[in-house]
């Protein structure tokens, strides 16, 4: 009888010890944040770390990564980490998702360094942590003069003269062979140490940051020049 009397307390204390320990641990512990990948905005170098397995991208404030760009749908896409790597899903966006300049249907596997375009928001996709990113970045910063970067293949075109033509015509400084590009599509020139762009396109118009230009427009660091499916990043 005496044993049972004490056993009641013991039993209670044992159970509570386990429960309290587990409960405390469950309530207290939280998974640490971890960056799985990075999206770098090619227009202005903003870094968007991807620290969830599924990351929504869009204009809505409910998205994990918010772009204010008007060509981005409210919920545009999802970047998801699956068993065999990263995927990007087009979640019925209006302007589509492009990976390396190809429009994706529903989903597309991502590789390190891929360029993803959400509408006209161009992103460079890096797998891994931020530290890796910085090293790559520094390499690029060595060049000092302004340049145009072809977003598709990362080839750079240094603006070392003061007059550059873009068009289908042979002999243009930047030659684009697509049919819809006019022979003389656009001109970029330097005036008082600033670079201006002027559009001469007939079939497709040249846009800067998604906006059509009607008169010579000054270029600023990070502007994206787009001609049809071709895009260039202006860097200083």
């Amino acid at each position, binding site marked *: 009888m005496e044993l049972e009397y004490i056993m009641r307390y013991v039993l209670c204390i*044992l159970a509570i010890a386990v429960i309290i320990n587990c409960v405390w641990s*469950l309530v207290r512990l939280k998974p640490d944040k971890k960056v*799985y990948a990075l999206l770098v905005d090619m227009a202005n170098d903003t870094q968007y770390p991807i620290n969830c397995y*599924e990351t929504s991208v869009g204009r809505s404030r409910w998205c994990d990564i918010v772009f204010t760009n008007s060509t981005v749908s409210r919920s545009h896409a999802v970047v998801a*980490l699956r068993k065999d790597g990263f995927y990007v899903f087009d979640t019925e966006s209006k302007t589509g998702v492009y990976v390396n300049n190809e429009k994706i249907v529903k989903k597309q596997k991502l590789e390190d360094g891929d360029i993803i375009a959400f509408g006209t928001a161009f992103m460079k996709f890096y797998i891994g942590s931020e530290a890796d990113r910085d090293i790559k970045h520094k390499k690029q910063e060595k060049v000092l003069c302004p340049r145009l970067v072809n977003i598709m293949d990362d080839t750079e075109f240094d603006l070392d003269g003061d007059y550059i033509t873009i068009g289908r015509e042979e002999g243009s400084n930047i030659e684009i062979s697509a049919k819809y590009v006019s022979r003389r599509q656009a001109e970029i020139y330097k005036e008082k140490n600033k670079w201006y762009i002027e559009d001469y396109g007939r079939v497709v118009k040249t846009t800067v940051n998604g906006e059509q230009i009607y008169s010579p427009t000054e270029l600023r660091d990070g502007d994206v020049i787009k001609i049809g499916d071709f895009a260039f990043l202006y860097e200083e």
Partner: protein
Amino acid sequence: MNILKGKNVNLALMLFVVTLFEVTCLFTLLGKAEEQYKMNIIITMGVYILVQYAYFFGAKIILKRKSFEVELIAFLLTSIGLSITASVYPKLAVKQLIAVLIGIFGFIFVQWLLRDIDRIMFLRIPIAVCAVGLLAFTLVFAKLTNGAKNWIYIGGLSIQPSELVKVAFIIVGAATLERLQSNRSLTKFIIFALGCVGCLFLMYDFGTALIFFFTFIVISFMRSGDIRTLALVCTGAFMGGLLVLMFKPYVANRFASFGHVWEYFDTSGFQQTRTMIYSTSGGLFGVGLGNGKLRDIYAATEDLVFGVVCEEFGMIMAGAILLSYVALLVYSIRHSKYARSSFYAIVACAAAALMLFQASLNVFGVNDLLPLTGVTLPFISRGGSSIMCCWMLMALIKSVDRSTYRFGGVRQ
């Protein structure tokens, strides 16, 4: 890679304490049991303890898991329920043990099933069809027992399909983020939920119907965040409920004593008042396993089991049990952002919320803070289907923790 900040519980120590608890229960049970049932009890508790060790061994050594809090809680709660069953119905102890073992197997199976997100997303439609089919089958073939038509009998075994459907319901309701973003409409899920809840209503299993409805609300909210639609659904359900009460007054009669059970002391308030009387009789530390008197009341080990725990183990332990349900939900919520997919986040939160809701229906029901609906207390109540369901829900909760599965991360 240490996923969690801070340290997890020490598995070896906790396992030792849990074992100590179970062994103490075993000896207490043996001290009270009749000679012919002693073997039953030894087998039940013995096998249970062995399985528990086997599980933790497998998870720690083979799967190299780090966190075991969820399982420890599940094992402890199950052992409390098992002890009560073995004490009140020593004859049925082995049967209950088998259900527990199936439950643990289900726990492992569901974890495996959820491993591959594409597979489980693909399986949702067949699961949905099976779930509704099972409920419809029950509706047609079940016999009326205790005023509800929710049991089917297959060769001497009785199963409550609605318990298994709970798990299916949650899986069907959840989805990955890209699916949620591309298809915001809840229509399909609403139709599915309506089918399930409708079947349960026709079975007169209102408690379970309420749980399904609640789970539906939680899942829908997690999916869409659309408060307006949900408010509409709730109002509709409320009106529907009122209509049922108006046209089937005997349904209302079931809840007539709610709020003043002491006035219906020997009639419709019988179970509640006895639960309260014996709960307080136990005091903070209880009168000891096997010394209770509430066990003689009808459905003591199912609906009134909270009272039995209070009386025999004491109010403090009962409180700790309630706390553990809360902790599971907190765990799910805190991990939801870092889950491997929104599917797991929704599944875990819904499962934990379901358990908490069911626990509150049971506990507050027998203590007259809510109407008595006759649902079980997760893990503690006797009943095979119920315990299986609880273990499978645990798998859903466990899936929210990204450390549960070892693959899928980025190689570093």
